[in-house]
């Protein structure tokens, strides 16, 4: 067995090497595209800090204002102020969106004197229970949306809204 590489072997090795390199050059991006959804970063950074302290929350919903900084709408950057109704149930924090499910007005806790423990929409007298459930017989057709919530360093952070999970 000679260790010498023949001319023919040398040629085939070189061709295989170069060919393999070129093939991988083509295949790599394809594989990369195929598994791209897996590599995508999760939107963890979407939680927005609020000035609301966790310790100060009670079972009574309070209004929490927070600002989404630098929201980009095409080339237009702006700060968007947003509101949530936040309360505590045991150790979990519940944050409800104030946007009425009827036509999008802003609801208030206890806004109606005859129903002090419900959310009230001043537009068409829509009412919601504390967990956001719409009171039957009033105009709204669904429960109030809920915010993703996390508590970090004693402060409440709010994320995206999602359909109500409490009802």
């Amino acid at each position, binding site marked *: 067995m000679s260790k010498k590489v023949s001319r023919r072997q040398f040629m085939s090795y070189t061709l295989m090497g170069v060919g393999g390199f070129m093939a991988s050059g083509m295949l790599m991006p394809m594989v990369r595209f195929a598994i791209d959804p897996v590599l995508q970063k999760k939107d963890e950074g979407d939680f927005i800090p609020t000035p609301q302290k966790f310790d100060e929350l009670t079972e009574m919903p309070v209004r929490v204002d927070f600002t989404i900084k630098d929201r980009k709408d095409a080339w237009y950057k702006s700060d968007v102020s947003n509101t949530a109704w936040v309360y505590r149930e045991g150790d979990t924090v519940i944050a409800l969106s104030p946007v009425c499910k009827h036509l999008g007005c*802003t609801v208030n806790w206890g806004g109606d004197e005859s129903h002090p423990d419900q959310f009230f929409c001043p537009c068409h007298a829509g009412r919601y229970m504390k967990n956001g459930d719409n009171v039957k017989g009033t105009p709204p057709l669904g429960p109030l949306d809920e915010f993703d919530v996390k508590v970090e360093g004693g402060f409440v952070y709010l994320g995206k809204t999602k359909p109500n999970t409490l009802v």
Partner: protein
Amino acid sequence: MNWTAQDMDTYLQQKEYIDTLIVPLLKVDTVTEGMKNSASSSEFLMHLTTFIETQFKGRMMLMPPFAYTQSMDLTEMAATLSRDLAVAPFKHVFFLTTDVAWTSLKVDGEVIWLPSIPLESMDPQLRKTIIEDQLRQVLPRFTKKWSGQ
């Protein structure tokens, strides 16, 4: 609702619920000395009407502001505006303005005059509080009209 195509679609489907029209009246002063004040009060009026719109989105339609310069004939404008807005299918019409001239004019609908507050020097938090206070001032006018039908 805003005066946009998308909101207008919602309005056309939900006409019976959205029965109130908000019309901002905006004085544009072209004299150099008056320009700053005019800009400041237009900023105030636009902030306030936008805020009112978000609070009462499902009941109110916010019109684009009607602007006029200092020597335009307001009596004629009031008459024309009243005539044209009467065609629109809204039960309640509110005119919001910082120009005191409108309080003495005859228009169809209710004129709400507000003293202009210079918002430009305030930080966003204070600005929000002021705007909310202003809404609280105006709110009884709306609810009174709504319940009086």
